[in-house]
């Protein structure tokens, strides 16, 4: 009972930090981008994350869900989440207005996109659907520090033209001479002038040398299998291929066990893994 006083001052890791949604932009029929900043300025100033890390966002009274951060770590005043209206929490977020409060825990995940390892090498970025959202954090970081990297190519596949996300960003990348961008859609409309079909079919065209290239992939589970087949066909080594895995996560800190694959936990060992790490892990991809 001598302990009680100490315990009263204790907190736990489930307490979210208050934050405000400063800006909401709709970028497709199902996706919106939320700019979020912590109420506590000191907390915001000390909020550092790596591309590929995620946060747990609480809609008070409703629930909590994990979301990858989509903005660049260089962006210090706020961070961005690109969220699809698909579940309980994301649905509630889509109904929220600018100025609404949410709770944030994180950033979580020790495995992030290897922006540090890639320095001085070529980088091939492959995104499928909403997979562009986590990857965008890395892409923007690389663009900001473009001189640190060699050749850069983005392959992005979406279902149809209206579900292509980050259109203006992609237009900007496309306009740059030091980035090659390939966007492909499964179901084009009359105005579509880009590629047609799944993103895997663009991989054979990549001519980056195998020994000097990192590949970073983010997309839905079904995409990974085929992308990996294509990359292996081109002999890209598995320790230079990185994938971000999605799983159910309740705690974010390796305790609730929902994201366990074999002996690994996606929330603490990932969410980004090298293909080498997960190659023999059943269920991973």
């Amino acid at each position, binding site marked *: *009972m001598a*302990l*009680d006083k100490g*315990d*009263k001052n*204790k*907190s*736990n*890791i*489930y*307490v*979210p930090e*208050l934050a405000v949604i400063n800006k909401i932009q709709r970028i497709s029929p199902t996706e919106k981008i939320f700019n979020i900043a912590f109420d506590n300025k000191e907390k915001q100033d000390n909020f550092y994350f790596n591309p590929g890390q995620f946060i747990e966002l*609480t*809609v*008070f*009274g*409703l*629930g*909590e*869900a994990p979301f990858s951060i989509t903005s660049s770590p260089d962006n210090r005043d706020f961070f961005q989440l690109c969220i*699809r209206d*698909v*579940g*309980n*929490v*994301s649905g509630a977020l889509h109904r929220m207005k600018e100025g609404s*409060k949410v*709770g944030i825990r994180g950033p979580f995940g020790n495995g992030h996109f290897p922006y540090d390892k890639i320095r001085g090498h070529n980088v091939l970025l492959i995104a499928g659907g909403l997979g562009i959202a986590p990857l965008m954090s890395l892409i923007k970081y690389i663009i900001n520090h473009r001189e640190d990297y060699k050749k850069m190519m983005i392959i992005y596949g979406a279902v149809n033209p209206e579900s292509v996300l980050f259109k203006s960003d992609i237009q900007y990348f496309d306009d740059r001479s030091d980035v090659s961008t390939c966007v492909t859609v499964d179901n084009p409309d009359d105005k579509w002038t880009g590629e047609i079909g799944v993103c895997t079919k663009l991989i054979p065209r990549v001519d980056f040398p195998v020994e000097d290239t990192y590949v970073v992939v983010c997309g*839905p*589970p079904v995409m990974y299998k085929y992308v990996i087949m294509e990359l292996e066909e081109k002999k890209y080594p598995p320790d230079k291929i990185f994938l971000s895995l*999605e*799983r*159910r996560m*309740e*705690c974010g*800190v*390796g*305790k*609730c*066990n*929902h994201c*366990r694959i*074999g*002996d690994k936990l996606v929330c*603490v060992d990932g969410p980004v893994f090298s293909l080498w790490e997960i190659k023999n892990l*059943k*269920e991973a991809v």
Partner: protein
Amino acid sequence: MLYKIMSINAYKDFVKSLIYNYEFIGPKKKDNAIHDFVQIKDISELDTNYTRTTIPPAKKILFPPSEELVTYDVGKTIKVKPVIKSGKKVLFGINAWDINGMNFLDKFFTTDFVDENYMAKRKNLIVIGMDTEPTETNFSPSMGSDYATEGFDLYLTELEDSYFIRVATAEGNKILNKYSEVSNASAVDFSDYKRYMDEYRKKFKLDVNIKDFYNNFELIYNDDEFWKRIAKDCYSCGSCNLVCPTCFCFNVKDDIKLNLKSGSKSREWDSCMIPGYGVVAGGHNFRPDKENRLKQRYRCKLKTFFDKFGRYACVGCGRCIEACLAKINIAEDINSINKEVSI
């Protein structure tokens, strides 16, 4: 460790004092077959002579089925407050394998970071162990958990006309001296104790070969047909998780009160065997097949934490074997995996 002797009469007074002075949790007969650990108000309710409990006693107290973690007021301003409950309790009559199950949870909830909700309760829990009769599904000797060497404050072993007490902590020693009269164990007491333990160990009938399993499990891990066969009767009900002293999976959920002015975040037990365990928003299920769920459970119990902590996340209590409606038997499966691969 100190070794003390308490007379049978002193024992009764000791228990009465603890019941009077503490929130005292002990085994109480529920029906003919089952005991339940509940708060005991009078010594007549206490029945330490039990064989079966459904919900593991330590887990029930330290990691309850549902537990509030955070409360908040919603409205114009949102105020968030952590909830950490503690309070001194005595857990009396817990047996060796359940203490070892608790030791696993202790390790789990203090590794990587300290889980304050668990620790606040754990620090305030006085654990007094006692031997109980094993069920026929108990294979704790194979798992090295039929004997507890840590995790308790006092461990009482009933000899013919006295109790042999192992005193593991200063707090245990303090309450022993405060509420009872004990003497140091003599050489005769030690040999009585040894004789008792030799007899006690003979009561465990079920044996599994867990050492060979370590490598054999990897060899059979990708044999889908084998896992389908093992899991074919599984109802995916999660009973095995509910009764397990080491299962720790949980959900974190938010609730709002009917007045819409305050809400809370709490965690509640989840089960890795139920079909929705791996479902994410949008409906994709990352582990839809029951054989993969069972395989993952076995991996978690018998491999993952052996690699991480050097101890199994299974103490061999046999509860899951008794609870399983489909008669899936982890002990049998360990042995049949060994047989299957080592042809």
